[in-house]
């Protein structure tokens, strides 16, 4: 079974600029994907530096960066990661 590792940044920039809303709905995401997804919080992914604060909140799915993350965007990225690319038959 394919797995996705999701890291949601809880650094101040990400949290204040939208991450708080994602975190409050995390249970919904967890319920949707069950044990196919491994969740991780990061104190700060460091992605908001160099004038990229306006792209916050950040998250990563299997290492791939999701900018301006929303619940919907994260869901889509996770689905993509779980589907994989090589066999294309994923779920």
């Amino acid at each position: 079974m394919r797995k996705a590792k999701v890291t949601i940044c809880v650094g101040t920039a990400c949290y204040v600029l939208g991450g708080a809303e994602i975190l409050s709905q995390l249970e919904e995401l967890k319920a949707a994907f069950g044990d196919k997804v491994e969740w991780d919080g990061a104190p700060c992914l460091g992605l908001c530096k160099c004038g990229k604060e306006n792209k916050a909140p950040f998250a990563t799915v299997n290492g791939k960066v999701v900018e301006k993350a929303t619940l919907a965007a994260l869901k889509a990225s996770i689905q993509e990661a779980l589907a994989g690319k090589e066999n294309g038959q994923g779920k």
Partner: protein
Amino acid sequence: MARENNAVKLRRELLFRIARLMLENRLEADIDSIPFETTRDGWEIIRCCIHHDRALIRLRLLGMLGFSAEKMSDVERPLREYAAEAMKAGRQDTFPLTMISEACNSCAKTRYLVTDACQGCFARPCKTGCPRNAVSIKDDRSHIDPERCINCGLCEKACPFHAIVKVPVPCEETCPVGAIRKGDDGTAAIDEEKCILCGRCVNACPFGAPVEKSELVRVMATIRAKKRVTAIVAPAAMAQFPFSAGQFAASLLRLGFTEVMEAAEAADLVAVEEAKELAERFSKGDGFLATSCCPSWTRAARSIPSMARHVSDTPSPMIVAGMLAKKRKPESFTVFIGPCIAKKWEARKSAAGSGAAGAGSIDAVLTSEEVGTMLIAASIQVNEEKEIVLSGASPMGRGFGASGGVAAAVTRELAKLAEEGSFVPDVEAVVVSGLTKENLASIKTMKPRPEGKAALLEVMACDGGCVNGPCSIANAKSAKVFLEKYKFGGAGQAG
């Protein structure tokens, strides 16, 4: 309330940009470039063109500097001139909410609309059920005559295809006191007499037209001038991050505040005072006391004749905390931090020389959102801060941050008075959580209690209490959980 929307995000991004320029000491030099910086790569044009978007961002920045943005008459004056004024300015005594007329969509009056889903059916319950004969069938479709329609909504409910929808005016729809006035051109304006500053319109308007005026620049300039600045933090503001309140307090010190005081410390005193006040009023024949900690509520109560005299004379925890801070260190510049817009008005109303109780005790008010953007600008990671011990308040005082908390604290103080042998009447506590139109209507019809009984009415304008304030960072559900942690974490001895 879902805050995951672009209007809220833009507001926070702009506040952050102002805060960063302030920290880097180049607000005047660079503020005029913010509308351009913000609309660079990846900006999705919202209005007719990018220039219009930038013009509106400029007006939003005006509000954030503390100025009114009602009229667009000063397009030529550079923002840097306003910024210079804002940094030097004393307290702004104008209304804390402003409407960017130019951003207002001038939404058409609330109406019912027949959509393409209409099948032109045979039963036609929309037509047969209309009390004003406003529905007719043209080209096999229902039509509503706006001249006759009274917006009763019966057709919407009757249609089996859900083909009729209500198109509301979001600000009007959400305003509990009818404070939105529409001009001849349909532009909304705020009736400052009626408005209770609950902030519902700020988050309801999909065009982000109502904006609150900020004292961010003024506070940051005061910190920069190395003055003694005291942060007085509301319980709900302590409950905005998924980390401890002690870490949040430490973050405020890192931002440059000299000291952090829990507003809950004053809330403990307020509970004692309100309990005494209720017992005293009862013995004088008036056993109905309404809480006074929510300024939106006290504003609303002014215009409810049956209620105005029942509102407690005890000053709010914010004012009491300010008085305590000034008593301890008279040179302190006191900044209240909460998720609230109405507190800005309350602080101004009690400005020095106003004659109000505790006049001059609060020098400025910041929202949780504004403080959050200051933390981003200063690259402060709340979770990396070493927590400081907060020991000034009891769990009851901290509980003022959510609905039911004030009633619980006052009830407990009444019980203590009874234990001490004082006369205390039987008290029924009524909690109104959220000043919606409906709740306001029910408050207006409240009857005095039966003989021999007293009543305590707790009203908070936000649904669920301050944890659901209009300028929160965390969603109300999470903030409520964080508040529980704060209540019992590192608390001093209860009461």
